[in-house]
Structure formats: C-alpha cells, structure tokens
C-alpha cells in the first residue's frame, strides 16, 4: 500500500506532535524553549505549505481515509490557525503577559502539543469517510481545547474549561445519538453507503440528521446552540480563545460540508430549510448579542455567532457553497487572529474592555490600524478579504435552483447591523477620547518585534486576499474538481 | 503456539446463558421432571434458576465458613492465638461461634447515616461475587454459564466491587469510613489496571477470552499450564496476579481501607450484625474467586498436573486453596503498606513491569518460544 502524497501532511502533523512532546519532556530549559515554541509554529507553517504543495487533483484514498481536494483549503486554515495560535501564546509562555490575570500557562509545551493534537483532529475530520472516524476526529479536535481552556489556572479559566467541557460533552452526546439513528436508518456508517440509503422519505433518518446537526451546531456555536460561547471566549486564555473562534469553527464547518454533500446528499431541499432557519436565527441572535457587549472577547463571541449565520446561509445554496465557505474561513481566521493579537497586546496590562481601548490610535497607531482592518474585514468591507468572502456567501444562496432572495435580503440587512457594532469598536479606538479614568489604568503598550511583524504580515495577507485573486481561484479550482 | 486446536464453540449468548440449556445433570433432571427435555419451558427454567441461586448461596456460605475457619486456624498457628485451635474438634466450632455472634448482634444504623446507601452497600459485593462464581469452570461439565467473553465479564464485574465500599462508606456518614472508602476506590482502580494486564497476557497467549477454553487449552501435564508454558513471562504474570489480587481484595499488606489501627475499621466501621457479616462473607467469597481465577488462568484450572490423573473439580479446589493459603499467609506475616507506598508500588513498579512483561510475552508468542 503506497501512501498518497496528501497523507504526508497528516503524518507530519502527528510527528510534529511527538517531537514537541518529547522535546518538552527530554530537553533542557533553553533548548526546550526554542524547539517547542519556534519548532511548533515553523512546523505548522511548513505543514501548511506541504498541504498546498501536495494538494491532490482528485480524491486520494488510503483505506478508509479519503483526502478530498476541496478539504485542502480547510486544512490550510487549520495549519494557519494552529501556527498563529502558537505565536499568540508567546506572551503567556515567556511570562511577559497578563499581569491582570494571574499566572502563566500551566505548561507551555503541553499547551502547544495540545494545539497540534487538535489540529490533527481537524485533519482527521476532513479525511473521514465514515461516521466513526468523523466522530473521533471531532473529539480529538475539541477535547484538547477543554484542557487548554483551563491552562491559565485562574477562576475564569477554570470556569470556562468546565463550561466548555460540559457543553462539549453534551454536543458529543447529541452527535453520537444522531449517528446511532443514522446507522439505524442507513444500515452503515460509511458515507458512500449512507449516501445511497439515506433518503428523504426515511423519516427515521431525520432524527439522526437533526441531532447530528445539533451536535455540530454546538461546535460551531450557531444559534440556538451558542450560549456557551461568550463565557468561554472570555475565560479561556487568548490563544485558546482565538483558536476556538477560528479553527474549531472551520473544522465544524468542514465536517458539516462533508455530511451535507456526503451522506445527506439526498436530503437536499429539506436540509436547505434547516440551514435557512439556523442562518436566520444565528445572524439575528448573534447581532443582538454583540450590540450589548462591553468586553471585547464576549463581543467577538457574539459576532462569531452572527458570522456563522452567514456561513450557514451559503449552505442553503448550490455548489458555490464549498469554495465560498473555504475562502471565507481563510479570511475570517486571519481577521479573527489580527483582532486577538491586538487585544492580546493590550490585555497584557489591562482588561479587554472597550473603554480600555479608547485612545488606542494615539497610543499605538499600528495596533489601532490593525484592529480597524480586522474589524472591517470581519464586517466585509472592500478591499479587504472579508468583502469577497462574505459576498460569495450571498451569491451561493442565490444560485440557480437555490434562489433564497429573502434570506439574502435578511442577511444583507443583518450585515449592516453587524457593521454597526464593528464600527463601534473603530469608534472607540479612533474617535472617542479616553477619559481620565481610562487613562490612569493604561500604561504604555509594549509590542514585541515579532508580534509587530506577525501583525503586519497578517494585515498584508488580508488585503492581498481581497485584491489578488490567486488564493481565491486556487480554492475554487480545488473545490470545483 | 497453535491456537487453532481450540476453536471457540460458536454458541449464541442465549444458549450459553440460558439456564435451561446448561448441561448439568441436575438441570437435565429438572427438565425431564417438567416434561420439557429439549428446550425447557418457563417452569423448568425458573426451577433451574432457583436451584442455581441456592447452590451459589450455599457454596458461598460454605466457602466463607471454611475460609474463616482456615484463616482463624492459620492465624492461630501463625500468631499463637488460642481460641481457633481449641474450640471444638480442630477448632471447627470457632467459625460457628463467630457466625452465631454476628447473626445475634443487633444491627443498628447510625442516626445521621443515609439509609438508602447504607443498606444498599452490603448487598452489592455478594451480588458481584455470585455473578463471577457463575462463570468459573469448576470441572469439565461443572459450570453454570460459559460466556464467550468470560474473562472480560470477570474484569467488568470485578470493577464493581469498589462501588459497594464507596457507597457504604459515604452512607455511614463517618469520616473514617469515608476515608476508607476513598482509599478503597483509589486502590481498586489503580490495581485493576495491572490485574487486567495479567488477564490480557493470558488472552494473548491462549487467544481466548472464554474461561472454559482457556482451561481446555492447558490440558496435559503441568508444564502446559501458562505459568510454566510461557517461559518466565507466565511466572512473572502469576506473581503480579497474586500481588494485584491481594490488593483488589483489600487484604493485608494492602488493607489500607480497613486499617484498624488508622481508620478503626475503615468502610465497615459503622456496620454491625447481619450487614457487617455480608461484607465479611463477600470478602471471603471474593478471596476464593480470586484464587479460583488465578488457578484457572495460570495453573490449569480443573486439569490434573499429570496426564494420567483424572481431571476434576478437586484439582481446582486444591489449587485455589493453595493460593488462598498464600493470601492468608501474607495477611498474618506482612506489615501494612502506607497508602502512598501502595500507590507508588502500582504506578511506578507494577504497571510498567506488567506492560514490559506483556510485550515480552508478545515476543515469546510471536517467535513461538513457548513450551
């Protein structure tokens, strides 16, 4: 059995995890610091490059594991998010950050190891060819996150971890329950067989479909399964929050697409209605929630609920859905990480509330500009990547045969609402003058050169994605085949 | 090692567990009596079940009594105790006196305890013991149930023993009890790992999880027993089994759960009378079960040590009692371990060595280096 080239990435990822774990436990402190931190992010970046280089023309199978071309952009997203999350942990590893939240990460090496494990789980999800692998992949992607959420070891962090664990287990329970029904209805766990046997008239299957969707809905934090998100975003350490906000959602979406265009493909039109419902609910609730937030991380949580609504809207559409979601995720992840990088720089000496961001443009123009670009990208303003990302989601819902124009209008209006709260952030950093009370708690902001570099690279990336179509057409080529 | 000679008998669970097809002479007689010679009917099944239950109860009580007597006797010999060696002929009446004392004692419940858990706890260990007794093959045609996954069944049920201690210790609402219960839980969970690794070694060697087939696989002379047949690995595993099972039984030197001198009796501090005797009884039945399983897995079960001798239940008994003697011997000679020493022994010594031993055995089997 020869290994397909695309599988190298998975193997490399597993090896990277081993290397990190071993060097954490075997090496001396100085070498360990270098290898664990730099090795991890460089390794993830290299694996990302490898993912792109080994992108298959057509589906490559090894036994039960299937590497589909359309999942390659998703895999790239996972790698990018992993690498950025490692980079974002820099403060917490070196002990220069988070004085207002006591303590460091419990163990930097384990933290990074868990990130890589989680990334590996996401890879497995995209390669799944049966429900068992799918479930195991999803669990590997999320269980390390429960641990990571507790890594800061203060009350917030523990609370976040406990909540995440309970909600995550609940969602797993839903998924497993649904999977058992699907198995009952389709008499198999294999996607190919299920695609034949799960027909819309098998009402029995619908219980399974609904529960599986609910389970994944929890992972995606799509309304009405979103209530965990704000607390956990707020409590977990920033790199973990950023990772949960980006990569974990990407994995959930990849899994969702896998199911929708795999075993559920005969359920078509009714699924569209479900997604329409979820999309509308998510957008509305997410937006309403985000409007009222005072703390940045909670705000990001609610806005991510709304963002998921837009993504789910694309799933009501035709074959444009996959590439448009992939592209959107790429942009969304970068935009999200910029925001979290900036907030992490701020949060090293003050709580992440909006009032503490006032006057940022004067204190640190670079951070302010980065946050501005991130917010506008999330809102979908050209020429940033977010524009095309969001616009294609709209187009996907308008494809011939799937014309959901009312949904589009509703979503477009919601996009305007979301723009409002993103602009509130911009207003706080650029326009509102800090009061004396705000100022007194704000010492000077110190940015490490490496963080500055990362931010600049990310900002350039998000602009390039918006004006240079190479990545876009690459994704469409892969997803089209 | 050629496992193909012992193909598992592909019986359905129904056939294996359905008492009215169990091939005991008594069962056949009941079936004939009820006019249902082949499949059996509800009446015959019910009667058979009742007979089985009575048999198990009787056997358990008897075993317990014998063991108590044995323990007292041996303890008396080891530690020069006077009573057990002189009460009645061979000190036999000492057991009866002990039993009588327990039954006649007033069973009372502490006021602040939780009645549900307090009364539930004593019932559980015996239940588990009975279930395990059912699958032990006493002789070539002497067994109650013969599940294909007998060994897994045993490990599953054995894991439940600790529940009773946990529940009972909490239900007593006594800090010593609770501490004992917690210790019992930690100890049982830890040592179970090694214990199951010992089981796994036998599964690996025999390719079977069915106890009857495992015994059948050790037919012939005594060097066909797994303790010897796997050079080195079998013996090490047997020693580990003895250690871990002693710990699972909460017997000295691993009796930190009771530890009279520290916890004033641990989990059973607040129990008296019949409730206490249930624990007491279960403890001894468990001891027999552990010994019987050890004999079955490592010492050829009911097989005779030499081919020319007839096989039969007496061999199993003999082997079991030999192991029981070891248990008793340990109890009255070794001092008690501290809880941290106990944990260190398991996690830092037994578990890694068991794993290495398992790998070692795997290599032996893969290379065919067995007797």
């Amino acid at each position: 059995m020869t290994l397909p080239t695309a599988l190298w990435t998975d193997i490399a990822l597993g090896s990277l995890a081993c290397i990190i774990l071993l060097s954490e436990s075997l090496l001396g402190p100085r070498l360990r610091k270098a290898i664990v931190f730099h090795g991890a992010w460089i390794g993830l970046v290299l694996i990302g490059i490898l993912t792109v280089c080994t992108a298959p023309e057509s589906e490559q199978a090894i036994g039960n594991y299937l590497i589909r071309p359309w999942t390659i952009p998703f895999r790239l997203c996972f790698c990018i998010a992993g690498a950025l999350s490692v980079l974002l942990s820099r403060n917490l590893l070196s002990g220069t950050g988070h004085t207002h939240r006591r303590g460091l990460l419990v163990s930097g090496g384990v933290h990074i190891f868990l990130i890589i494990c989680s990334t590996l789980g996401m890879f497995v999800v995209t390669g799944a060819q049966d429900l068992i692998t799918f479930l195991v992949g999803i669990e590997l992607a999320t269980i390390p996150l429960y641990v990571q959420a507790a890594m800061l070891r203060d009350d917030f962090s523990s609370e976040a971890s406990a909540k995440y664990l309970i909600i995550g287990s609940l969602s797993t329970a839903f998924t497993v329950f649904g999977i058992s029904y699907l198995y009952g209805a389709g008499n198999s766990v294999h996607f190919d067989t299920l695609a034949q046997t799960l027909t819309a008239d098998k009402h029995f299957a619908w219980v399974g479909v609904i529960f599986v969707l609910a389970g994944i809905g929890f992972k995606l934090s799509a309304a009405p399964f979103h209530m965990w998100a704000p607390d956990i975003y707020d409590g977990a350490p920033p790199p973990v929050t950023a990772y949960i906000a980006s990569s974990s959602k990407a994995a959930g979406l990849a899994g969702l697409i896998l199911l929708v265009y795999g075993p559920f493909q005969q359920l078509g039109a009714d699924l569209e209605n479900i997604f329409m419902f979820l999309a509308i609910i998510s957008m509305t609730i997410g937006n309403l929630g985000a409007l009222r937030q005072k703390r940045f991380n909670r705000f990001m949580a609610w806005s991510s609920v709304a963002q998921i609504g837009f993504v789910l809207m694309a799933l009501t559409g035709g074959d444009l859905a996959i590439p448009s979601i992939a592209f959107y995720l790429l942009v969304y992840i970068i935009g999200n990480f910029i925001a979290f990088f900036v907030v992490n720089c701020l949060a090293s000496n003050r709580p992440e509330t909006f009032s503490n961001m006032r006057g940022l443009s004067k204190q640190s123009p670079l951070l302010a500009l980065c946050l501005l670009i991130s917010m506008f990208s999330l809102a979908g303003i050209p020429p940033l990547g977010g524009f095309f990302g969001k616009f294609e989601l709209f187009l996907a819902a308008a494809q011939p045969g799937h014309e959901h124009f009312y949904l589009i209008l509703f979503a477009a209006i919601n996009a305007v609402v979301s723009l409002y709260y993103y602009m509130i952030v911009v207003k706080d950093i650029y326009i509102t003058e800090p009061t004396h009370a705000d100022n007194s708690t704000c010492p000077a902001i110190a940015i490490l050169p490496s963080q500055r570099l990362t931010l600049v690279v990310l900002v350039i990336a998000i602009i390039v994605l918006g004006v240079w179509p190479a990545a876009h057409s690459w994704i469409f080529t892969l997803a089209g085949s | 090692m050629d496992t193909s000679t012992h193909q598992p008998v592909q019986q359905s669970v129904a056939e294996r567990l359905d008492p009215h097809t169990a091939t005991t002479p008594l069962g056949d007689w009941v079936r004939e009596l009820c006019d249902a010679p082949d499949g059996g009917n509800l009446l015959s099944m019910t009667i058979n079940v009742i007979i089985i239950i009575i048999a198990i109860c009787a056997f358990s009580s008897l075993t317990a009594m014998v063991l108590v007597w044995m323990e007292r006797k041996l303890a008396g010999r080891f530690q020069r105790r006077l009573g057990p060696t002189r009460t009645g002929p061979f000190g036999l009446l000492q057991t009866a006196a002990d039993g009588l004392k327990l039954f006649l004692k007033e069973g009372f419940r502490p006021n602040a305890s939780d009645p549900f858990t307090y009364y539930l706890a004593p019932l559980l260990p015996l239940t588990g013991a009975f279930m395990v007794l059912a699958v032990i093959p006493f002789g070539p045609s002497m067994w109650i149930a013969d599940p294909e996954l007998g060994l897994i069944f045993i490990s599953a049920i054995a894991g439940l023993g600790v529940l009773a201690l946990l529940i009972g210790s909490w239900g007593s609402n006594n800090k010593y009890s609770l501490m004992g219960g917690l210790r019992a839980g930690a100890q049982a969970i830890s040592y179970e790992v090694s214990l199951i690794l010992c089981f796994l070694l036998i599964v690996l060697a025999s390719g079977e999880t069915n106890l009857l087939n495992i015994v059948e696989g050790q037919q012939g002379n005594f060097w066909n027993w797994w303790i010897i047949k796997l050079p080195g690995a079998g013996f090490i595993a047997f020693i580990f089994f003895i250690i871990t099972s002693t710990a699972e039984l909460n017997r000295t030197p691993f009796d930190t759960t009771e530890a009279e001198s520290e916890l004033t009796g641990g989990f059973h501090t607040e129990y008296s009378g019949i409730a206490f005797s249930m624990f007491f009884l279960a403890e001894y039945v468990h001891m027999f079960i552990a010994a019987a399983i050890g004999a079955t897995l490592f010492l050829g079960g009911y097989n005779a040590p030499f081919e020319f001798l007839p096989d039969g239940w007496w061999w199993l008994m003999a082997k079991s009692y030999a192991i029981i003697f070891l248990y008793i011997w340990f109890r009255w000679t070794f001092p008690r371990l501290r809880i941290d020493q106990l944990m260190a022994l398991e996690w830092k010594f037994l578990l890694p060595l068991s794993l290495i031993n398992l790998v070692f055995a795997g290599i032996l089997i893969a290379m065919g280096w067995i007797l």
Partner: protein
Amino acid sequence: MPFLLNCTWILPTLIALSLMFVPKQKVGVIRGMSVAGVLGILALVVSLIIAFLAGDYASPVGSAETTLAFSYRTPWFEAIGNQFYTGVDGFSLLMMLMASIIALCGVLVSWTITDRCKEFFILLFILLAGTFGCFISFDLLTFFLFNEITLIPTYLLIAIFGSGKKEFAAMKLNLMLFGGSALIILGMAGTYSATGSFDMIAIANNQSETLGSIAMWAFPALFMGFGILGSVFPFHTWSPVGHASAPTAISMFLAGVHMKLGGYGCLRAAIYLMPEGAQEWMPLFMVLATISVVYGAFIAIRQRDLKYINAYASISHVGLVTFGFATLTAVGLKGGVLQMISHGFVTAVVFALIGCIYGRTHTRNIDEMGGLMKKIPFLSVCFVLAGFAVVGMPGTSSFVAELTIFIAGFSGSLDDTLRLVCGALCISSIVITAVYVLRTVNSVVHGPLVDNGHEFTDARFIEKVPLIILLTCIFAMGLFPGWIIELAEQSLTPVVTNLGR
C-alpha cells in the same frame, strides 16, 4: 491609455500609501504631496478627455455592441464571474472631470487642517480612489466594490474631523448607506443568479433573454440601493446631518461627488441593465423624486444653519436628477446627467463658502450674521454668485440642467398625468428655492454688520483659488454647455436604445 485610465484610482491609492510613511509633523510635505496628487489626477482626466475627443470614441457608440473607450478587461475573481473591467464613456469622463476639480478645491480648502492632518489626507485619497474606481468600472461587482470603499473613509472623516454631533452623523450616514448596499447586494445576487456574470455591458446587451422576471424585483432593489446614496426621499435623512457635521472639504466632496455616485449607479446599474424593471417601477420613483424636490426645498426654508440649508437644497436638487431619470426619456436622462454635474459644482462652491465664512464668524447660524459684504467683499460676492447658481439663473450651469429636466417633464405624450403633475410640482420648487436663497443671501451678506467679537479679514489666496475655479466652472458650463451636452448625449444613447427595446 487603459493604463492611464486605471491610474485615476491607482494614483490616489499610491499617494495614500506613501502618505502613511511621511512623518506626521511634516505638514508641509503632506499638503504638497496632496496638491500634487490631485493636480496629477486632474491632469490625467483632462488628458483622457482630450484623447477621448480626439479619438474615434467621440462618435456614438453602437447600440448593439457597445464599446467603451480605453476599455481594459482582465479576469479578476473570475471563479464567480467577476472581471476587472474598466473603461469610460462621455458620461463617466464628465463625472470624473467634475470629481477631480472638486477634489482639487477640496484639498485647497483643507489647507487649514493641522490636527491629524496626515490621516485626513490619507482618508481623502482613499475616498478619491474609490470614487474614480466607481466611475470607470463596468463590472457590476467591481463597481459595487469601489462604491463600498468610499464609505469607510467617509465615516472616519466625518467622525474624526467633523463638528457638532459628528459621531452620530457619521454612524447614521454610514449605516444608511450600507443599508443601501444591502439592497444593492440583493439586486446583484438576483442578476448573478440569472446571468452568472457581472459584466454590465454584456448583461445590458442581452438582458431580454436572461434577466426576465428577476428584473422586476431586482430593479427596485438596485435603484433604491443607489437611491439611498442619492438621498431619495424616505431615505434622505442621512444627508443633512452628514453634510452638516462633515468638515468643509468632505461636505463639498460628499454632496458634490459622492451623492452623485448614487445617481450614477441608478443610471448605470439599474436603468441600463433592467429597462423592463425601470418601466414597471418608474412611477413610484417619480413620485418619490418629486417629494424629494419639493420637500427638500420647503425644509430648507425653515433652516437657520447654513450647512443645513445647503444640505436640504442638495436633497431638492438631487431629487431633480432622479426626476429626470424617472421620465425615462432621452431628454430626461440627459437633464439628469447635466444636473448631476452642475449640482456638483454648485454645492461644492456653496459648502466651500460656508466653510470660509464659518472660519471667520465661527457661526453658521444666519441669524447671527449680517453685512458681511462690508467686511469680506470677495467672499460675499462669491456667495451671491453661488446663490444665483443655486436658484438656477440663466448663465449658470443649473439653468442648463434644470431647464432640460423640466422640458423632459413636459415633452412627449401628454397623456401621462403623473409625469405632468410631478413636473409641475418640480418647477414650482424653483420658486421655493428662490425664497430661501434670496433670504439667506440677504441675511448673510446685506444689512447691518453683526459684530460677534471676531476679527477677520477677507479670503486669503489659498481660499480664493478653489472658489474661483468652481465659479468659473459653473459659469463656463452655463455659457458653453455644448460639448458637455454632446458627450452626455452620446453616452446615453445605449441606455435609451435599451429602454426602447
């Protein structure tokens, strides 16, 4: 030449980028670069116009196979059928000329800005880039994209550099304009769903087969979407607050150019692409336009703040553009286009003057001013001349444009009662305009000098230049409108042909 055309948005982008690297203390360098930048854009546009007039492009473009001047087409986000498709016709060129002149004047007017000067000019140039990109795009998505780009700088410019309730105004303006974008997205999604393309020329050329029933609802979405930007009646409320709060240069640009993007979009994207939808829905929009015209004028009477007066006047005058379009006749469309250009100049000069006057009197309330002619004769003369232009005196550009629109209201069939009534109402708005203009001029310029303690002198050279340029343009267009009308007519031919299909 296609490259030069694209330079109209590349150049401002580059200037904005290079300004980022100028230290913010070097105000002189920043100003110099800005002026050079806008002059460069103006030179580009002028050279393009010369090339356009010199080339064969001046001949009417064919109705069946429309070709654009200097067209440039390259696949862009082609996976969703998007091309980067730029080109110009006479209409676009006229708008670009107007925009570049106003931009030049805007930069000159902003000479006095010192606080966050760098950010101001960066944002201004991004705004310019978006605007010019809009005028030259003939791909619907690219057009929309450039349109969106203009919105964010507007927000920041108003919210940072504005006055009064600037944050509220900026937010309101932006949200309403993005609301318009939401409608535009809907319209575009419909178009894409039916045709799978964003190429405006291609869609317009064979719309009858593909668009079909979608045009019936996509048209109002698109028209209203752009109409919000053009402050059509029920959605005009962003405009007064926005204009009033914005700094002078931004008010000029916002009212003079940015609002015109709405009208431009209505014509280009809505009417041109979906003539059937246009014919179906136009009565509604005609009514709305008329309400804008009359209502805007009436509200202007009640205002005391100079900026508010001009803002409502703008609503009224831009309403005339929509009215011209709503007649769906060649004359009406031409009138609309002329009014867009004319009003751009007029409103820009008025806002510039208001800025100058406010800089001296430190008030914009007409009750607190008076007799300025005595103190600042140059500015006062300009003010009076601008007043003439607002009213539409013959000789000013407004006269040409408004006359054309009114003619459109009454030309053709006399059975269309709605059009006749609306036309009459629109004409009546001139009277109302005259009322508020004369009264404002009277109150500000004439009468006794109101002394509120501020010492001031007449316009400096740097202030005179933009005023003179803009007034020159107004009168030049009013006196020699010929080539403008010609250019507009030529470029409107395909639209009219499409309407007649």
